[in-house]
């Protein structure tokens, strides 16, 4: 069941990339790849229709969503608010969404991550990072 959905989704995605570049010269290699992909997508769909595929366990999207959200927030905050606050936000989002860490644990974790990152990345390795919010 789920395989069918996935197969269709993948096939349409492939069809899209195939259509977007069709020019001669630079488009030649991608076009060949696109055709091959589309063919495979079709095979996968047909196969999943013919064979009763094993049901996949229901998707638990919560962890994925939390992680993606925290990454996006990191991206939004790193340039304006700096490293310290960005790390604080990431750990906070993850800690709240999983409720697996005690308050004390959270403070310890965020503290050590901030200390480690600032010392190692910003000072020892001189990576171009803003540590504090730009005023």
């Amino acid at each position, binding site marked *: 069941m789920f395989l069918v959905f996935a197969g269709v989704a993948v096939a349409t995605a492939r069809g899209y990339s195939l259509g*977007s570049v069709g020019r001669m010269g630079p488009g030649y*290699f991608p076009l060949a790849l696109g055709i091959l*992909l589309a063919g495979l997508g079709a095979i996968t769909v047909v196969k999943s229709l013919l064979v009763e595929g094993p049901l996949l366990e229901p998707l638990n999207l919560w962890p*994925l969503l939390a*992680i993606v959200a925290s*990454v996006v927030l990191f991206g939004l905050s*790193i340039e304006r608010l700096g490293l310290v606050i960005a790390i604080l936000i990431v750990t906070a989002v993850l800690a709240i969404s999983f409720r697996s860490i005690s308050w004390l644990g959270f403070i310890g974790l965020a503290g050590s991550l901030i200390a480690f990152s600032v010392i190692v*990345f910003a000072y020892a*390795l001189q*990576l171009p990072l803003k540590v504090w919010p730009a005023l």
Partner: protein
Amino acid sequence: MDILSNLNLGFQVALGVQNVAYCFLGVLLGTAVGVLPGIGPVTTVAMLLPISFTLPPESALILLAGIYYGAQYGGSTTAILVNIPGEASSVVTTIDGHKMAVMGRAGPALGIAAIGSFFAGCVSTLLVSFAAPPLAALALQFGPAEYFSLMVCGLVAAIVLAHGSVTKAVAMVLIGLTLGLAGTDINSGIRRFTFDMRGLADGVEFVALSMGIYGLAEVAYNLQKKEQAADRVQKIGSVWPSLADLKFSTPSILRGTALGSILGVLPGGGALLAAFAAYTLEKKVAKRPRHFGQGDIRGVAAPEAANNAGAQTSFIPMLTLGIPANPTMAMMIGALMIHGISPGPTVMTERPAMFWGIVASMWIGNLMLVVLNLPLVGLWVRLLRIPYQYLFPAIVVFCCIGTYTVNRNLFDVYVMAFFAVFGYLCLKLECEPAPLILGFVLGPMMEENLRRTLLMSRGEFSIFLTEKISLIFLVVAAIMLVILAAPVVRRKREEAMRE
């Protein structure tokens, strides 16, 4: 004579204070991630790629290589004591290793794993130094046609050796190739697959892709799995195996080393496959195979020797041909490219200090690992008590910082988030990401070589069949595909994967 003077040069590089320090840091980190289930060497190497940017290329590769083979050592500790593979390649070690630990023989199991790994490491390092120069010399004569066919052959091998559905593996390779093509076309300057986004003009950032798939997606995948209850073995005892144990397992170590060395060179091979194959081989040749699965020391010795040998020899195709045998090697190529070195046969002649320095550092690293692992095993066991709840936020933070600092580009961070979702779906749909990474690295090279070939032959595809070496590669690829399609082999393969 050549080899000796080269090795001498290598040791001079590798024994420099800075490089010894990085080698040590590499194997230390490698052991740590090997011991910890849930983070592997690929994730760690991906996280350290941006840091390696600030180091000289020798040190960077010595550090990254140390992580890879260090993880092979560390993985066995967890496998034996906790019955969870700390590393994918030590899955097999859990079978007999943990049984031994339950029977109160955890010490000898750990000891033989380390001794086997060390022996295999030494032999395969020697093999690298002997096999690499002639191979590189051969590769120097390759034209674009040969390279294209070689890559086809490599990708087919990656498909053959991938787990699960063949169709899916092929699809993953093709997606990887396509992703690799995104960005500005070198020949015509036309932007492809950029969807009018400026951030994609230079293509998809390799670090962002690999961290998304191997770092974040894996974390998400691990988090939604239920925690396994683990029965831990606390008592370790003396780590020195008895003389009888040693004698009993020596042939297994030798076989494991030989098999691992061969399989490591194959694209798609490397440590994981080597361990599985070695275990199966031991079962076949043993006089009393019934003992396997019940704490047979040979079942620990052979796969551990094999996975370490495989880890080392997989450097051969990477350093001489510029073709990655597995995702970790793809990362190494990424690291070389960050430093502006194009991997291939010229690396050895143009940068002998780097090449031989890496080879020599492998031997030093293996020596360090024995010291790190045997007396300090208690320390690593303590590391296992760190709960995953504390580890995964750290991984996420390091992935973010790493991706951002490569180019100081926020867009890359969002690309990483996108590939986290993509990688998660792949894991859920049982599509292995390894062929995708290989395809991604090889994509631009393949297109370039295809175009050059067709330019030289004026559009004649037959050139791939008239050039001898190129023909050989294509025939090998075709044979592999045919074998794969044969129903008997397919059933066997499925059986082997299930084990």
